[in-house]
């Protein structure tokens, strides 16, 4: 590990992408992720083979990503919620053509133009598809600037390994905050990409990057095959942090900035004698279903802490199979739940359990 440097979250993502061998970036300005675009604009033209392009729209940016991904080279785009909505068409095509690419969403409050303060209200969009058709993204959720860097690196590797787009789902706080970070080592793609369009050189049959299959039998087969890959991802790539869960009687589920506030609430409640722990999903697709289900056998209930009107709570309820009560502790529109609010909702759960 290299020496730690103080960096903004958005810049840590950009630097980690460069260190993962990404030399192609296409973006469009939008708050609160613009530092990432600006960082790439500064660095990429100075690197060999580096391509930075400010696209005419988020739609064009994601289609430029589709073009580069088809050539097999590592490529990234980033945006914030309204811009990510615009990218959904392209993301669906990238998923449908089985191409690796990394998409960063530094979320802000919505719907519509919403606001520019942090949010987690794109959880459904990120984990349940987002664009049209049956597909998933691998969705990674950083909870520190260090993880902004580490998970960006990981996103490139997972996208290449499974030939699917991966999303880094951060939020405005993560993007804007500064923390010391040990930047990852320089690497690059480790998998062969014989499917890439690089010119046949008259040495092979032509490669076709495509998501059109007019025969329903064939289209169904491509869906089945893709979901076999998704099953492998669900088996191999679930990541989460288990915090003070060994003796926990109550389990908070939270990711990103919400998980950091939750940890403070847990410390305070532990001092009062309440045995509270945290499961922090790092991948929200695949969701740590097994960890939640196993916790359900030990704890008396769950609190889902979110910066949304309650989206992840649906996955928590599905995972714990209605064995325990699940309460929602949330703020929306760019507001962040406070330590006191989390303590208060968790105590409601405790009271409910005692009745």
């Amino acid at each position, binding site marked *: 590990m290299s020496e730690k440097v103080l960096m903004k979250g958005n810049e840590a993502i950009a630097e980690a992408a460069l260190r993962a061998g990404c030399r192609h970036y296409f973006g469009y300005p939008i708050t609160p992720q613009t530092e990432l675009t600006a960082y790439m604009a500064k660095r990429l033209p100075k690197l060999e083979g580096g391509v930075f392009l400010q696209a005419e729209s988020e739609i064009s940016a994601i*289609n430029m990503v589709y073009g580069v991904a088809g050539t097999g080279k590592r490529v990234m785009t980033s945006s914030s919620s309204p811009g990510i909505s615009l990218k959904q068409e392209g993301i669906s095509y990238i998923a449908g053509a089985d191409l690796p690419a990394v998409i960063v969403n530094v979320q802000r409050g919505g719907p519509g133009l919403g606001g520019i303060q942090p949010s987690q209200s794109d959880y459904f969009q990120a984990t349940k598809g987002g664009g049209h058709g049956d597909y998933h993204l691998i969705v990674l959720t950083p909870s520190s600037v260090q993880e902004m860097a580490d998970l960006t690196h990981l996103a490139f590797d997972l996208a290449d390994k499974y030939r699917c787009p991966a999303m880094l789902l951060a939020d405005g706080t993560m993007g804007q905050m500064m923390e010391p970070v040990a930047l990852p080592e320089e690497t690059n793609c480790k998998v062969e990409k014989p499917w890439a369009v690089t010119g*046949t050189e008259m040495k092979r049959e032509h490669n076709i990057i495509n998501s059109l299959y007019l025969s329903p039998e064939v289209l169904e087969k491509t869906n089945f095959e893709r979901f076999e890959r998704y099953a492998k991802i669900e088996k191999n790539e679930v990541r989460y942090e288990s915090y003070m869960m060994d003796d926990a009687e109550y389990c908070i589920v939270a990711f990103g900035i919400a998980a950091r506030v939750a940890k403070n609430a847990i410390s305070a409640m532990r001092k009062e004698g309440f045995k509270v722990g945290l499961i922090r999903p790092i991948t929200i697709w695949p969701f740590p279903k097994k960890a939640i289900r196993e916790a359900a056998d030990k704890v008396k209930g769950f609190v889902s802490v979110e910066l949304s009107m309650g989206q992840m709570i649906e996955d928590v309820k599905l995972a714990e199979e209605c064995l325990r009560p699940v309460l929602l502790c949330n703020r929306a529109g760019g507001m962040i739940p406070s330590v006191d609010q989390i303590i208060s909702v968790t105590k409601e759960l405790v009271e409910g359990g005692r009745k």
Partner: protein
Amino acid sequence: MAIVFEKPKSLTSKELHYCPGCPHGIIHRLVAEAIDNLGIEGKTVGVAPVGCAVMAYDYFSCDMVEAAHGRAPAVATGIKRALPENVVFTYQGDGDLASIGMAETVHAATRNENITIIFVNNAIYGMTGGQMAPTSLPGQVTQTSPYGRDVKVAGYPIRVCEMLSALDAPYYIERVAANNVKNVLRAKKAIEKAFRNQIEGKGFSLIEVVSACPTNWGMTPQKALEWVEDKMIPYYPLGVFKDKEANA
């Protein structure tokens, strides 16, 4: 015996799905002949549109990418930036290029993106069964302009070559037609030039090919070609609209 005529090498043996009398087959051939003549099949990547030519990826024997509707110039930009030594072309229709993909078209042009665009204008959406296109003529009857294109409601057709020529950046813009032997030969020359420009690093070249759609125009192939001559070409005059080489 000497072979005097054969299929271009850059076309596959796949049977074309186009309607009888559709000039897409001719225009595919012109593109393939240009690729053959320049000896660039092995380093060419083509981008297919959404529309009648959606399955062009099966017909050209170079590497191919199928783009979303209208996005081909953005996709081609990505490919060309990643593979600057390769040759990248898009093949798009009027709905794809001049309606849903107008932003992508204009911005690729204004970046002087070093790609070649083959733009087939037949004044109608063919694949979906004959709806009004951005290039449908005033008064033209289509499925979505059943009383004729009313310019007060639907606006006027867009002359893409004229519009793009107003930009400083693009290198070469020409309009040709595929309705008779003379025009086809001229189209062949223009398309080859558009590819040569790219190989020489000159930048953005767009060739608009005024074409016909006998099926959705409700005409015989012969009548449709006459309609190109009598109605389309007067509205879409043929010629070179921008050639920085000539101006240099």
